[in-house]
């Protein structure tokens, strides 16, 4: 029980800090604005030949790219700032386990991302008004966004523990998220299959985020996809605690 209570206390403080610094508002506004304008301006949402009122290709293809930037930006301060200002010494001499602090902080940042994602709800209303969308793909799309954001945020969290500089964390985490996306896009997988064999391609495909994201946004919430994201998040948060502990010893 005390673990949950500690996580809740840390979560609360971190969430307030995210909104106090105004950064959370900025991220939410930028995310909603960009995802909407990309959908309407770059895509054929209103194209005459649109076959159905679907969000799968018009809207849900964008959040992955936006979250790749947004998640590191939201998460970059999580541990870098604590280490820069020395408050980590305060936090870790409180009667709580390191993982309580890690999970509390992570969930607070995830909440900001989730709020940003959910604020795109007008597009769902629009589509529902204009046509008859497949609700499964809408839910799947949103889950895909949140899981993808959660994974990118977990990577950021681990990187953040490594450095005192938020900017360095942002750049490194961004590069890692981008890399993880790239290794599993179809052209790379084809190249890998041709040159290094099918097994390598399989490994790349399952480690990268591309396939997992695209499958989920189609409404395929498979066990494998959920396990992929959850294990990635768990691994990165575990890595964070290892980094935090090893930095002191």
């Amino acid at each position, binding site marked *: 029980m005390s673990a949950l209570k500690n996580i809740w206390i840390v979560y609360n403080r971190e969430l307030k*800090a995210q909104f*106090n610094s105004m950064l959370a508002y900025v991220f939410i506004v930028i995310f909603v604005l960009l995802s909407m304008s990309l959908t309407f301006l770059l895509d054929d949402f209103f194209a005459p030949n649109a076959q159905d009122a679907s969000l799968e290709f018009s809207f849900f293809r964008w959040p992955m790219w936006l979250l790749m930037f947004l998640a590191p930006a939201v998460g970059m301060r999580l541990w870098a700032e604590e280490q820069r*200002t020395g*408050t980590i010494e305060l936090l870790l001499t409180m009667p709580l386990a390191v993982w309580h602090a890690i999970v509390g902080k992570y969930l607070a940042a995830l909440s900001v991302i989730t709020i940003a994602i959910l604020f795109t709800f007008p597009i769902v209303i629009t589509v529902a008004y204009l046509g008859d969308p497949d609700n499964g793909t809408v839910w799947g799309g949103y889950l895909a966004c949140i899981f993808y954001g959660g994974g990118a945020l977990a990577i950021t969290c681990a990187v953040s523990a490594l450095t005192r500089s938020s900017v360095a964390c942002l750049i490194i985490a961004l590069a890692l998220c981008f890399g993880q996306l790239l290794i599993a896009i179809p052209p790379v997988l084809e190249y890998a299959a041709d040159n290094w064999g099918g097994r390598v391609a399989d490994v790349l495909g399952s480690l990268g985020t591309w396939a997992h994201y695209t499958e989920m946004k189609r409404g395929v919430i498979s066990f494998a996809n959920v396990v992929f994201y959850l294990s990635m998040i768990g691994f990165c948060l575990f890595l964070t605690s290892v980094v935090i502990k090893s930095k002191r010893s």
Partner: protein
Amino acid sequence: MISVRNLSKSFGQKLAVDDISFEVKKGEVLGFLGPNGAGKSTTMRMVTGYLPPTSGEVFIDGINVAENSIGAKQKIGYLPEAAPLYSDMTVSSFLSFIAELRGKGKSDVEAAIDICFLGPVKRQSIDTLSKGYRHRTCLAQSILHDPEILVLDEPTDGLDPNQKQEVRNLIKRMGEDKAIIFSTHILEEVEAACTRAIIIDQGRVVADGAPNDLKAKASGSGSHTVKISGMAGSGIRSELSSISGVKMVREFASSESSFSGQVIPSKKINTNGESIFNLCKEKGLLLEELRVEEGRLDEVFREITKTDTEISERNVKEEDPEKVVQD
């Protein structure tokens, strides 16, 4: 309450703390002295469970910090060096956050605010506070749960003289029923607030004792400053030198009819006063001044913690006056 056994900490090749052991009991205020980089903060961080020791153990009220760090941390209040704070919070919301983590309530927050004189700024954002207020906010954080053990890393750093005095009094008052360790550079503080002091240098304990015992280790300690008239200065000096138990006589000023200087005993004992008085009585000299030197803590500190090169430089300088007297 605090028991530190053979504690060592190395960062890579560098040995920051080298086999330190000490105990602090309830009702004791331990002053932690040492030059910068001596390992004071590192030791305190290990006591509070922030840094894991490379070897050795820390027991807080019988709890091994390495085995049950959460249990130990509950009993400790800690003021880290440089008083880090979440600058985006207000003073009272920050203290409430700490109180929640410590399982304490609003009344404890208010009490801590009162003790640390934070009333006027409690609704202010921490990043707008002056250094003194920031420091006191962090101090409030450390005493909020009324801990049995307090570890304060330079608690008076950055405070003005009045605030320093207040914090010293606070430490002294709280020291009556707690075990307190605090580090400082200011030696009067040790005399004012500590019941015991430890001097550490290059990661090792080089002196441990009550402030008065430490002061007795100063080279000037136990010597007598005298001013005597009624005879030629050189004569008085040779008379003083002939007293048994006098190691040397250092001259400050000498004239046709008077002498002033310092009589340094061969052992650190305080019996020369009587001999000097008797000498004056026998020879019909006028003893204008006779004062026992107590020895100063900063002198002890400098002597113990100076580097080898400083010692040799100092020896060269000090040889001259001795020669004059022995000639």
